[in-house]
């Protein structure tokens, strides 16, 4: 039985063209962009090309607005701590949606120790942020508001332009975690009115260990790491040239190809959703239409998600994800599923499928068969 990966969100393969492009920076063209000799200058040129490619993907004002990091967690920490601490003189209020990634929520919670105040903005049952609640909570002291572009667990896409208008009318800066959305749907930081945007290399089929924070010209952040002056002091440390060059190339390819690839994946995804929802007591989680094109997420009554994941894997060689407590380190159900109003026992039965380059329409029948059999098997075992 062929492996079918439906968990591209947790890790994505390197695009072979990116691998071919970037490999030389590990071998023949290695170099430290800070060195002044020809090898260093060549490395610096490659780094700046990568920066320009990433800037173009999101229509940033200039390549200088891209700060490279070692990944999404770091970019989110830099956005939250960097912007909040830099602007603390203006106010100490923080807002975030209830469904932000933990790498946004945890640095915000950590700032509570420094006298900041954090309020979490609710979302509706489909995961869309409550704009009226946001408006009511915003004030000039709200130095940072963080709302993700799209959620990785339920696929819901947020009305970022409307959020941005509110934040800029009533508060200060808007941070958007775009890791799950970039490369899947168009992001235009200027049109959307984004001050800080987190990006992931691997989600674009670039190397792991690279990410970026877009910082709108005029917005000031302070570093969270201290060392040399790389990235204009905003993120010191010798640049991971291979990963960043690959990130740039992946961003270039995403810009060229993302519309077509998203349509291709959406057609497969729609086929999966239509058939899987025919299973008794199965429900879509997240928004039916304002949804990432490669993303399908469900919950099934009376069964548990880790058992779904293990059965799909061991019996059908299909890899999926779940927000069940039992599969997490903390044994808490996903905060995202609780935020959309699911009870604990409902959140336990979640299954998430995220599609990628190796998926094709010929796999649909096998995936649906596997899902039906898995649900059937576990319900036969269940006392509920």
């Amino acid at each position, binding site marked *: 039985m062929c492996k079918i990966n439906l968990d591209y969100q947790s890790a994505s393969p390197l695009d072979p063209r990116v691998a071919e492009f970037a490999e030389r920076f590990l071998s023949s063209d290695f170099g430290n962009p800070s060195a002044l000799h020809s090898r260093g200058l060549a490395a610096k040129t490659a780094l700046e090309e990568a920066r320009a490619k990433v800037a173009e993907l999101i229509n940033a004002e200039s390549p200088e607005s891209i700060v490279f990091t070692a990944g999404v967690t770091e970019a989110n920490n830099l956005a939250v701590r960097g912007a909040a601490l830099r602007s603390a003189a203006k106010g100490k209020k923080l807002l975030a949606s209830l469904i932000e990634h933990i790498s946004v929520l945890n640095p915000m919670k950590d700032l509570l120790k420094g006298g900041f105040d954090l309020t979490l903005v609710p979302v509706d049952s489909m995961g869309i942020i409550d704009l009226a609640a946001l408006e009511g909570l915003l004030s000039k002291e709200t130095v940072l508001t963080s709302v993700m572009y799209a959620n990785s667990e339920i696929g819901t896409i947020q009305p970022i332009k409307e959020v941005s208008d509110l934040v800029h009318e009533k508060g200060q800066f808007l941070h958007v975690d775009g890791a799950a959305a970039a490369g899947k749907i168009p992001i235009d930081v200027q049109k959307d009115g984004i001050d800080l945007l987190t990006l992931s290399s691997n989600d674009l089929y670039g190397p792991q260990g690279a990410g970026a924070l877009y910082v709108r010209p005029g917005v000031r952040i302070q570093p969270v790491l201290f060392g040399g002056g790389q990235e204009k002091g905003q993120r010191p440390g010798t640049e991971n040239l291979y990963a960043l060059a690959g990130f740039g190339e992946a961003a270039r390819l995403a810009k060229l190809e993302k519309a077509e690839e998203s349509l291709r994946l959406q057609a497969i995804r729609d086929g999966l959703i239509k058939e899987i929802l025919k299973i008794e007591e199965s429900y879509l989680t997240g928004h039916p239409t304002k949804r990432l094109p490669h993303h399908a997420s469900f919950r099934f009554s*009376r*069964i*548990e998600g*880790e*058992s779904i994941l*293990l*059965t799909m894997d*061991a*019996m059908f060689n299909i890899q999926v994800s779940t927000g*069940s*407590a*039992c*599969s997490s*380190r903390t*044994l*808490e*159900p996903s905060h995202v599923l609780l935020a959309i109003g699911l*009870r*604990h*026992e409902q959140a*336990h039965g979640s299954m998430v499928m995220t599609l990628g380059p190796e998926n094709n329409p010929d796999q649909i029948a096998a995936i649906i068969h596997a899902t039906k059999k898995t649900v059937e098997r576990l319900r*036969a*075992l*269940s*006392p*509920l």
Partner: protein
Amino acid sequence: MAQIGYSKKVMEHFMNPRNVGVIENPDGYGQVGNPVCGDLMEIFITVKEDKIDDIKFRTFGCGSAIAVSSMVTEMAKGKTLDEAMLITRKDVAEELGGLPPQKMHCSNLGADALHAAIKNYWVKIGKIKQEEVKEESHEGEGGESCGT
């Protein structure tokens, strides 16, 4: 090396669970856990000459919860009730080749369900009084295991 994921034996029991199902009119019945916590187990037994003659289970829960249920039924079958009462959570986990540390508590309720079924039988035959039955199911319901 630290154990990564589930042991082969856990996966084997998870994929091919023994003694799944329901016994109509069982001699003893035990249920522990809580769907809110993600694990609910029930065990049915029939008793012949003070031994567990037949045993079946149904479980809502994760991979280890299902494997634990399957294993405990296999361990208990044919044993005298007193012997079966001596089976501990730790025994079940050891028979399975170990469980990941975070699963040792929340999903390892098989022995509790077995003991609950045996006590239920003892109450029925008048060996013990209902009041003497320590509510083992509380272990799966309270703040102790769920969400900690």
